[in-house]
């Protein structure tokens, strides 16, 4: 239900468009690409570390690597470094798994004044909760589809 805009509003929009700073989309994309890429490079190094010093194969090294990357992001968030990275890189720091750790800890820090149970505990997964919920649910749906296809003998 879009309301009809009055002539003044339309005129204002025109002036606003003239003065609005343009979003540097290409520049942002390049920044996100490189910062996100470096985060993944660290992740690759961590996964090689697990493969080399512990008994993990390429397939099984994924889980501990993800956990370690989240742990790193949590530390960096607590020390206030990750905010700066996020401001610089945008999606480049939010899309990798480290963004998940950041959203958990930043919510916990924000609500610290409300106490440990209702504040930190209750609000920790404010943002990350939806990631977990929809991640688990979509994994369930995909697994269900695969199981059905296997039973029917399609694949």
């Amino acid at each position, binding site marked *: 239900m879009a309301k009809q805009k009055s002539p003044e509003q339309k005129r204002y929009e025109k002036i606003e468009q003239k003065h609005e700073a343009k979003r540097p989309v290409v520049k942002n994309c390049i920044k996100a690409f490189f910062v996100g890429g470096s985060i993944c490079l660290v992740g690759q190094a961590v996964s*090689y570390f697990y*493969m*080399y*010093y512990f008994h993990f*194969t*390429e*397939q099984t090294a994924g*889980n501990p690597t993800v956990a370690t990357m989240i742990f790193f992001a949590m530390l960096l968030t607590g020390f206030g470094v990750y905010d700066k990275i996020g401001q610089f890189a945008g999606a480049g720091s939010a899309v990798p798994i480290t963004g998940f750790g950041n959203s958990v800890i930043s919510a916990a820090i924000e609500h610290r004044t409300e106490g440990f149970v209702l504040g930190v505990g209750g609000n920790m997964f404010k943002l990350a909760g939806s990631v977990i919920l929809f991640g688990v649910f979509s994994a369930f749906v995909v697994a269900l589809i695969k199981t059905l296809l296997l039973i029917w003998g399609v694949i």
Partner: protein
Amino acid sequence: MKRKPIVVYGLLVLVIGSLLSGCNQGEKTSEESRSSMIQSVDPEATAVKKGDHDVAEKVKKDVQSVPAIYDVAVIKGKDEILVAYKVKHMQRFHMKKIEGEINKRLEKKYPKENFIVSSDFKIFIEAIELKDRMEDKDYSSKDAEERLKKIIKFKKERT
């Protein structure tokens, strides 16, 4: 605000301590397996039994002729032949196809042998390490066979 340094130091001690205690319990690693992480090492083919050396060498040559891969490690055990390889970066999209191709090629040429083919980097490292151990004269072939079995069991493991 005054309490912050204690927390920070505590965390640091925890992290460093757990890292150090975690890293020291591993076994000794070799120079070659370490450098295999960043470059091509081209390890020699070996066999647990001395007489099987030629077969292993031949298998290695055959596998190497697949254009999409580099760095092949072959170890021949009593019953199985372990073949580990690295896939060229842009070819990693076709991992399944390459594995099938190698399997088919080997099965056709050596119908009697039993092959364990893996592109997993961990298996590659383990193969190099086993090869380096076997160069040591004190390392008995029974131990080598046992370790090879362990690697093969490891390969079949998932998650």
